[in-house]
Every structure is written in structure tokens, then in C-alpha cells.
């Protein structure tokens, strides 16, 4: 798809889950951070944790090797599930750069629906549906895709780019 659409992986991806107050959640948070820090000598990646205005925690990964990124992201998701917070898991987001038109495009994995859908924000609250559909048609065969477009919920102001 990278070749077909002129999209390139930026090396940034993230997983997000709703924060809850309580020791169990705090412990999990610490566990995840310890785990990810322990990965760093071997894996070529950086991570940071951000909490957004909706009360969702984002673990944002940045690295050069896609396999490392995916492994870390999957492992983080698994840890959240193992600690009994699977209901809090919302989504994983993968960032792409459009080399032809500029701008960033995203692939969102919805944990509830177990499938992917495209998201191409163009402004504060606007999206490029045409690009999204082009993405879907290019990847649709290779991954479980959300066919119901009414469930393509956007994630505005993704905290993937700038720290903080």
C-alpha cells in the first residue's frame, strides 16, 4: 500500500486506553513504563505517555524498525488486557505520511470491533473522506476492515506528533 498510495510509515504509532483512578491502574501504568524502559537497550525505539483532555492515556512509540514498534505496541495492549483493563482499551493508531500531497494519514485499530479504519484529518474538525476511502480500498483486502463507514469515528488532535 505504501507503494500504491505514496504513503510512508512515519515510525510513529500509539495505543490508547481510558484512565481510571485506583491502585491497580496506577500499578499497571508503572509496570508498562518499567517494561518499555527495559526494552530500550535491545529495541530501537522511544516511548512517551500522555494523558489527553478526554482522560485517555496514550502510549506513543517512535522508532525506525516497524517490527519493533508493532511488538512494543502489541505487548502494551496485552499488558493492559492481562491486568483486567481490557474494557478500557480503545484504539491503536498508526501514522503515515502522504508523500504526494503532504499531510498525515492514520490507520485506527478499534479494539472493540477488532478491525481497522482510515482517518485523514485535514483540520480542526474536518477530514478527507476521499483519501480515507482510497486508503480503505488499497488495504481492505489485507486486513480486517470496518466496512460500516458510520463507525469510522475520528480521533481529533492525535498526540502522536509533538511531545506533551
Amino acid at each position: 500500500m505504501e507503494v500504491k498510495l505514496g504513503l510512508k510509515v512515519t515510525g510513529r504509532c500509539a495505543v490508547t486506553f481510558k484512565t481510571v483512578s485506583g491502585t491497580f491502574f496506577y500499578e499497571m501504568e508503572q509496570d508498562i513504563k518499567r517494561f518499555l524502559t527495559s526494552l530500550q537497550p535491545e529495541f530501537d525505539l522511544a516511548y512517551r505517555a500522555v494523558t489527553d483532555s478526554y482522560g485517555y492515556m496514550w502510549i506513543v512509540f517512535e522508532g525506525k524498525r516497524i517490527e519493533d514498534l508493532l511488538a512494543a505496541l502489541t505487548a502494551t495492549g496485552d499488558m493492559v488486557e492481562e491486568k483486567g483493563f481490557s474494557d478500557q482499551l480503545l484504539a491503536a493508531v498508526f501514522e503515515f505520511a502522504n508523500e504526494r500531497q503532504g499531510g498525515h494519514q492514520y490507520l485506527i485499530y478499534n479494539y472493540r470491533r477488532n478491525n481497522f479504519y482510515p482517518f485523514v484529518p485535514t483540520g480542526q474538525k474536518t477530514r478527507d473522506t476521499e483519501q480515507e476511502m482510497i486508503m480503505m480500498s488499497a488495504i481492505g483486502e489485507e486486513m480486517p476492515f470496518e466496512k460500516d463507514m458510520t463507525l469510522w469515528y475520528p480521533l481529533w488532535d492525535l498526540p502522536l506528533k509533538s511531545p506533551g
Partner: protein
Amino acid sequence: MYTKKAPWQKRDNGLTARIIVSFAILTILYLVFLSVLAYVGLGAIPIAVIAGIMILAQWYFSDKIVLWSTGAKIVSREQFPELHDLVERIVARNNLPKPRIAVINTKMPNAFATGKTPKSSIVTVTTGLMDQLETEELEGVIAHELSHIKNRDVLVLTLASLFSTIAWYLMQSSLYGGMYGGYGRRRDGGGGMLLVLLVAIITWFVSFLMIRAISRYREFVADRDGALMTGKPSKLASALLKISGTMKRIPTQDLRQMEGMNAFFIIPALSGSSFANLFSTHPPVDQRVKKLLEMEAAMS
């Protein structure tokens, strides 16, 4: 008589319905007329000749009937210069004769093409279509309609309908043959007649489904050819989504606000089941969009 129609029938049944009703009334009128002729004792051959003339006449006047029943008005270059320019751009690039252009004043976005030959054809668009679509999307829609003209889809479907009509008449006449013909075998004539009636119904039903299948196939072809004319399949795709109302249903509310996420557990409405597909003249929008976007991906 069949006419070429709106590619997004689902949304706007009104226009299509008016065309169908007009032709249905005409068909009934001439069936009544032929029955009267048969009743006054005219032979089979004169009736066939008269029927043939009437079918030809309806064919000949089909454009006028369509324009009249939809309220479409042929518009000059002075009235709609931009629309004329847009059509001219496409026909010039693809070496096609320029059709006449008609406009219907309604908010409903729609377009259709009519015409017996490519030269005498008319492309009709509604004012709603021009308002809702961007120039490139409108180009996509008009190229789709021009493909119908180029591919002579009106003729194809008229012939297909004609065959089903002829099949129906043949069955009917053998039915009457069974009624008046078999003097010596009155006893089992009833069963025979029922069988003929059954065969007639099946014949008609199968040809009905076939016409619809052909029509759906022609739509895909017109999508493809239209997209090739403009070189922008994704513009036609987004036009289709806008017209069908799908575009409006893509959410703008944030995923994080879908708190309880009940939204994800609602049983999805049975969208375009295959049963409904069998009867419709147009393929579902999502299938058409999918094919167009596959084309886009292959082209880029």
C-alpha cells in the same frame, strides 16, 4: 420501452417512478387498444403489424416522453454556460458527439441519459446535483451518463425488455390457444392451462430478473468507462457517496466521546440484502464505490 435513469435510484425514486408510470400507462393503453382490435375480430397478422407500429412509435417518441414526464427542459448554452462547457470538455477529450443538455429544477440530486442514438441523445441533470457536487464530481457523473449513451445502454435494455414482452405474449397466446383450441380434450384442458400460465409467469419473472441483472452490469460498465473518460475514478466515487447520502453518515464525533460504546453493539441494519439486490436496476453504492476506488488505486 425502457429508459436510462438515475444511477442512484435508491435515494430518488420519484423521478424514476414518474418515467415508469408514464410508460406503464402507455403500455396499458396499447394493450387495451390491441384487445379491442382482437375483439372486433381483426386477424393476428394485422394486430401484429399495428402492435409493431405502436412499439416503434413509442421508441421514436421516447425522448419526448421522458422529458415530458420528468419536467426536464432542454437548456441552451446561454442559460447554463458552465454546464455546457463541462460536457464539451468531456466529449471533446473522448471524441464523442455532444448530446443535448436538459435540466430539471429540483433539489434532489440526479442525472440520467436518454436517446436512441448517440447523436440524438440527451443528458439530463437536476439543479440539486449541480449544487451539491464539486466540478470534478459533476464531471464524473456526466461521464457516467455519457458512457451509457456511448454503450447504447438504452437500446440494450429496450431490446431486453422487448424480448421479455414477446415471450409473455407468446405464452399468453398459447394460453388462449389452449382455451379455444382443444375441443376434444376439455377434461384435462384445465391442468394444461394452469401449466401454460405457470410457464408464462416463470418466463416473465426470469426475464424480469435478467433485465435487472443486465442493467446492474451496465451500471458497473458505465462507472468504469466514465471513470476512464475523466481519469478520476475517486471523484465519481465521492459523487456517488454524496448523492446517496453516505458521505453525511461518516461521523465527526470523536471516538473517545462514544463513552459506553453502545454504538458498537447495535446490530447493523440489514443493508442491501442480496434478495433486494436481485430486483434493483442499480448495484449498491458501496460496491460501485469499491470498484471505482480499486480502479483509482490501480491507476495511481
